[in-house]
């Protein structure tokens, strides 16, 4: 049932009003959400808050121009006022004064939720953070600070458009964040682990052990405290799976989004069918994986989510395309339109994006690499999509000498260009794992999974001291 949010008849009136002076397409994105955040620091619950974001965004295509008006006033009068503001900006008067007739559709729910965080007693929620905190502190007396957080969000959305769509969905997210600081009195090092999924509180009975997460964060911090600085230079780099996939996400994924492809601001613009990566590289963006952090039933334009092959054996197969960029490119949208909230017009975004499993052996790739770097745990990074230049922090790195992992090193970063690193991947391992992130772009911050098996890059610039 979605009519308790906005009735079909109100949506029809608002959409017709938005197209009163012309425009080829109009859409309402309504959201009424609940969020819960709990944080623990110094062993005590420090913050607990709930919020109710609610509002609506109205979008009109004026030829290929996007007009977007959003408001917190979702009364019928408020929505009609917002529609008027959108209509006032329309210049192309073709198709003005159209009627809109809606038909309700209900997407299948690929991501069932067992237990809403909002029905869990306060003490049980606090207990999760205490377990993570205790386990992190038990790792070493040099762990001086632990911060743990529980984040939950239930986003109820309704999407209606002038093509007759009237649909909705509820997206439920639960995530644990752990950050541990190790100190030797003069220096501090940080380790983090932030697992989450598109599910409810059952996250902690099915997928995530809070103690294991706290311990993992603490181990990284302690390991890095003893590590000398990484020496700078060019070398082969082996990148472990899971959050290591951030390298593909940042260096290549963003450049395959229509947002940068369509205006020609991507190094992969116009390269469909061409070889852009080594033959061992196949990459996928999949919104259908059950209960994964970046999964969806429908995207934020109301289209069913999909699984999309981006690169197959090195050849560029697909871009991630939203509705408006699809119109501009003359290509079909791929269910990739996403937005943080009603306060953003959607654009093409990643979901669960990963390098597919290959055939190589993890142990062999290190043994045969000579001298280089093993990046066991990646931090975040950023990329300039126009040039493909990227920069990633290595949160936990190890020196490899003559094919053997030796000492941990700190302060390393990986820099290079997306097109280059894709061609230089020479090993892809067998076990793909994923890590969770919040990805920022023009349409705000959305949950995405990054992933890969262990991979090897034959040559990469390592920044350090």
């Amino acid at each position: 049932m979605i009519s308790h949010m906005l009735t079909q008849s109100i949506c029809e009136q608002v959409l017709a009003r938005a197209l009163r002076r012309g425009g080829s397409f109009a859409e309402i994105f309504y959201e009424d959400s609940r969020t819960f955040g709990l944080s623990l620091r110094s062993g005590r619950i420090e913050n607990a808050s709930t919020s109710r974001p609610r509002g609506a965004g109205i979008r009109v295509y004026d030829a290929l121009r996007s007009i977007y008006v959003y408001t917190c006033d979702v009364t019928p009068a408020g929505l009609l006022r917002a529609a008027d503001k959108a209509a006032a900006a329309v210049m192309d008067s073709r198709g003005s004064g159209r009627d809109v007739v809606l038909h309700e559709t209900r997407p299948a729910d690929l991501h069932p939720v067992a237990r809403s965080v909002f029905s869990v007693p306060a003490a049980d929620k606090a207990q999760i953070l205490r377990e993570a905190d205790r386990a992190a502190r038990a790792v070493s007396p040099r762990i001086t600070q632990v911060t743990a957080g529980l984040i939950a969000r239930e986003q109820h959305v309704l999407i209606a458009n002038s093509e007759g769509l009237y649909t909705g969905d509820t997206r439920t997210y639960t995530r644990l964040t752990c950050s541990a600081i190790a100190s030797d009195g003069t220096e501090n090092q940080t380790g983090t682990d932030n697992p989450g999924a598109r599910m409810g509180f059952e996250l902690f009975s099915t997928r995530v052990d809070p103690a294991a997460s706290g311990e993992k964060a603490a181990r990284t911090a302690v390991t890095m405290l003893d590590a000398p600085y990484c020496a700078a230079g060019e070398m082969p780099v082996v990148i472990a799976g899971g959050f290591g996939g951030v390298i593909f996400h940042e260096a290549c994924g963003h450049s395959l989004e229509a947002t940068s492809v369509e205006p020609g601001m991507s190094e992969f613009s116009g390269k469909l069918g061409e070889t852009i990566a080594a033959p061992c590289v196949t990459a996928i963006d999949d919104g259908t994986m059950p209960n994964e952090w970046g999964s969806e039933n429908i995207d934020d334009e109301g289209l069913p989510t999909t699984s999309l092959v981006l690169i197959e054996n090195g050849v560029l197969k697909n871009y991630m395309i939203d509705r408006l960029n699809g119109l501009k490119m003359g290509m079909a949208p791929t269910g990739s339109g996403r937005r943080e909230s009603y306060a953003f017009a959607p654009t093409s975004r990643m979901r669960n994006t990963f390098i597919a499993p290959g055939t190589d052996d993890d142990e062999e790739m290190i043994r045969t690499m000579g001298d280089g770097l093993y990046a066991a745990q990646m931090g975040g990074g950023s990329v300039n999509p126009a040039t493909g230049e990227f920069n990633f922090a290595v949160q936990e790195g190890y020196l490899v000498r003559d094919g053997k992992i030796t000492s941990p090193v700190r302060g390393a970063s990986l820099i290079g260009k997306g097109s280059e690193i894709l061609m230089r991947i020479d090993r892809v391992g067998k076990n793909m794992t994923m890590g969770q992130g919040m990805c920022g772009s023009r349409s705000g911050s959305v949950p995405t999974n990054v992933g890969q098996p262990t991979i090897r890059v034959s040559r990469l610039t390592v920044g350090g001291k």
Partner: protein
Amino acid sequence: MNKDASKDMSLSEFSARALEAAAQAGIAPAEIFSNSSETFSVRVRGGKLEDYKVSDRLSLTLRGRVGERIGTASTQALDEESLQLLVAGVRESAELIETDEQDDILPPDPAYSAVCNYSEALDDVSAGDKIALAMEIDKRLSAADARIQPDATVVASSGEETILRNSLGLSLSHRSNMIYAYASCLVKEGSQAATGFKLLWGYSPEDVKPWDVADGCAKDALEKLGAVRMASGAYPVVIRNNAMADLLSTFCGVFSADNAQKGLSLLSGKEGETIASPLVTITDDPLMPWGLGSSPFDREGAATEKKHVVEGGVLKTLLHNRKTAKKAGTKTTGNAAGAGRIAPSNLFIAPGDRPLSDLIAAAGDGLLVTEVSGLHAGANPVSGDFSLLARGFEICGGEIRRAVEQITVAGNFYQLLRDVTAVGDDLLFEGSPVGCPSVAVRLLNIAGE
């Protein structure tokens, strides 16, 4: 008709009802904080208006004491359901919280200073005028140089009003607005590609003149052409104002008393000690006229005031809210940012008297850093360590020699403050409440080839 939505109340009616509901539920004292904002923005690309965005937004937070603790809950919906959610949310929050690190709810301070960062005239600038401004920037950028491919030009304005009321007689409000314009472009020559960017902001269209934005953007891109990498090593470095502001912004948490008291800043207990070069003075000024971060009161309702955080290299004070001040036996500096957090208002390194060209000349053989990126990943706000992708110019014999790219600049922020050898006269706030002049640093590690 939508049953819930049709029952929405006005902000003042809802605020009064929420304070009433809180009192009835035994939440006392209680406070309502609301923020209403309006934004307008247009984006032009390739001579065409591509994006047009208008918004009005509201958020409201109820805080209140239940027993020992203060709970918090917020909403964007002003209806009956929200009244219940707020009261239940504050109660659950107060039940869960175990620390005292909440902002206090107190009667008003005796006096508040006046500060203006709101232009009534700006509210009268029409949508058509802002679109024309964006078109003009885009046109001038296209005409600037044949190698330039303009990306996007954005003109935007925003206005907001914050209101803070509590059950102890406090009633404060502050209004601000601004306009900004930026352009980005791509420049290609042979196999070389570079991007350019320029942002200007202010309180009138006069502050964002089309030629200044377009020319700045073109110049930024063109001077990066022909960029090479640099040999790895330790070099004297000049950090240009915009890049230095990015660094200070990333590391400004080291001046938070809350971080210091929790072991997250190495400046804990260092008040009165020399922590920086004597050339360094860092000021937090919430009463700066036309400052982006200006406000006469902070999130706790405390009156704000100008203060030096670092003066002549000596740490004078950390930034406090009432709780951290009480713990440290001092008084609040008016930097409460909500939820027990502390944030600067307008924070800047005081400018020196030397032009950037002097700093470059004095560097001898080294590097001018004009851009750092990857700050959210490559900078550790706790240890102060940073390793950042950078761009800039090689300095040879005190003169700019050529553009450099694909290098990382690594160092430690605490050490950098001590290693400052000169401060420029070019203080810049680039659309942010954190500003800096250009700064020369003794040595930083560069990773190139």
